[in-house]
C-alpha cells in the first residue's frame, strides 16, 4: 500500500468521524414502555421527529441525551408515513440540510445514525439500493438502502456522504433498510406546525 492510499484511508476515516460527530448532536433516544428508538432534533423548532411506532399513544414517553432525560409529549402523528412529532422545548440542534430523494443515485453511500439495540450513537454505512415511488402520483414514497439496521435505529437519520438528511429510517424489509424521504418529513413537520399555530 502506498502513501497516497494510506492518506485516502485516513481521510475517509476522518470524514466518517466528523459525520458521526455532527449527527450525534442532532439525535436523541426515545424511550417508551414498548421499546426504544431514535429521534431527530428538528433544528431550533423545539420539535423532535421520530417514527410513530417509537412513540405509541397513551403511554409515557421519555427523551434522553447523553446527559439529560425529559418526559415528552407527542404533538402530531402521521400514521400513513409512520411519523410522529414530539415537543422538546429545551432542545435545539444545527438543522440538517435536506436532500431530495429524487436526486439520489443508485450506489451512492448513505449512513444511518441511531441507537440499535440500545447501543448509543452507532453509525452504519451502506449504499442506496433504490427509490420506491407511489404507483400513481410518482411521488417518492420510500428510500431503500442496502444498510444494516436493527431495532433502535427506527426514527433515526439516514444521511448522504455530505451529511444531508435523506430520510428517517423506519423499517427493515428483506434485509434492506427503508426510510421515509426527507421532504415528506419536512412537509409533515410544516403541516403539524401550521395546525398547532392555528
Amino acid at each position, binding site marked *: 500500500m502506498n502513501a497516497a492510499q494510506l492518506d*485516502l484511508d485516513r481521510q475517509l476515516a476522518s*470524514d466518517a468521524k466528523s*459525520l458521526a460527530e455532527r449527527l450525534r448532536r442532532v439525535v436523541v433516544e426515545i424511550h417508551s414502555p414498548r421499546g426504544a428508538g431514535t429521534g431527530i432534533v428538528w433544528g431550533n423548532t423545539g420539535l423532535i421527529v421520530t417514527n410513530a411506532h417509537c412513540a405509541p399513544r397513551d403511554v409515557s414517553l421519555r427523551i434522553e441525551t447523553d446527559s439529560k432525560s425529559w418526559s415528552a409529549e407527542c404533538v402530531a402523528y402521521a400514521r400513513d408515513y409512520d411519523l410522529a412529532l414530539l415537543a422538546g422545548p429545551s432542545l435545539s440542534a444545527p438543522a440538517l440540510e435536506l436532500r431530495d430523494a429524487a436526486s439520489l*443515485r*443508485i*450506489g451512492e*453511500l448513505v449512513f444511518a445514525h441511531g441507537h440499535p439495540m440500545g447501543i448509543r450513537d452507532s453509525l452504519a454505512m451502506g*449504499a*442506496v439500493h433504490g427509490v420506491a415511488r407511489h404507483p400513481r402520483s410518482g411521488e417518492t414514497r420510500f428510500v431503500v438502502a*442496502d444498510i444494516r439496521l436493527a431495532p433502535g435505529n427506527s426514527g433515526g437519520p439516514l444521511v448522504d456522504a455530505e451529511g444531508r438528511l435523506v430520510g428517517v429510517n423506519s423499517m427493515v424489509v428483506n434485509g434492506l433498510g427503508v426510510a421515509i424521504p426527507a421532504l415528506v418529513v419536512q412537509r409533515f413537520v410544516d403541516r403539524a406546525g401550521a395546525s398547532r399555530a392555528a
Partner: protein
Amino acid sequence: MASKKTNNALAELSSQLSDAVKSAAAYTVAIHARRRIPSSGIVWRDGVIVSASHTVRRDGVVRVALPDGESVNATVVGRDAATDLVVLRADELKTPRAPLAEAGAGDVGSLVLAVGRPGRNVSSSFGIVSAVVGGWRTVQGTRVDQLLRLDLAIYDGFSGGPLVAASGGVLGINNSALARGTATALPAPVVDGVIDELLSHGHIRRPFVGVAVHPVALGAAVVNRHHLTSETALLVVSVVEGAPADAAGILIGDVLTQVGGNDVARPIDLLDAFSGVPDGESVSVTLLRGGVPQTVSVAPRDREASGAIE
C-alpha cells in the same frame, strides 16, 4: 460521468460508487424467463448475454428488457450446470458490452457493488471481496479455476447480474446458488472460458472414459516393489461397454495408479487428469493387473457427445 471533485473523501468515494453503478446499468438487462420477478443478465459480448442458469427457467426464445426500456428476443444458446451459467444470443442487440475491470480491482478487501435489474430499474448492494478461492470444486465435482466470495447481499433477482469494481468495470457474475446460498461471483476469465465453449459447442466438454473406480490402499510392500509415489490408487469396479476405457482394454479389478504421469488417489483426480487431454488425443494410463504393472493408452471422449448420464 466524471466524479465530482470535493474536499470530502467520503463524498468523492460515494460519487465514484454511484458512477460505477450508472455505467453498469448500461449493460445490465432484465431477463423474463421465470415467474414472479425477472432475473438480471449482462451484455458480455456484442449480441451475447450471460446470466445465472438457475434464474432462466425457460429454454428457446426469451424476452429481455434492455436498459433503454426497449426489449428484444434472445435465444438460449447453452447452459453449464457446473458454473450455473447460461448464454443467450440476441443478434439485433445494440446494447454496448460490459467493460472489464482493471487488474487487481477484485482482490480480497476490494470495495465492490452488486448490481441487479430485477424489474425496470437497477438497484445495488455494497460490500467487499472477502475471499478469492482458487481451484474450487462444484457439487458436480467440476473444478472452477476461481471463485470470489463476497461480503455483500445478493438480493432477489440479483443472481446473473454484474459484480462491479468501485472504480468501474465488471469483475464477474453474481450468484447466490453456487455455494449454499452464500454470496459469490464467478470471475470474468472463468465466464469467458465457459462462453467460448458454449458458443462453439453448445455445452461444456467434459472427459468421459467410462469407468467407475473406488480408492484402495496399496500397502507398503506393493508401493516399494513398483516404486510408486502414492499409497492410494483407484480400483476399477465397472467398465462401460464400448467406452474409451473398454476400447483400451481396461478390465474390472485393474488398479489405476497414474494417468499421464500423475498419481490418481481420489476419483476426482481422474477427472482432472483427463480434462487436460486435447480433443482426439490419448493419454497413458498406468495400472496394476494381478500385481503386474501395465500401461495402456486411453482416448477420452466428450461426455455429452457420448450420451453418458453420469
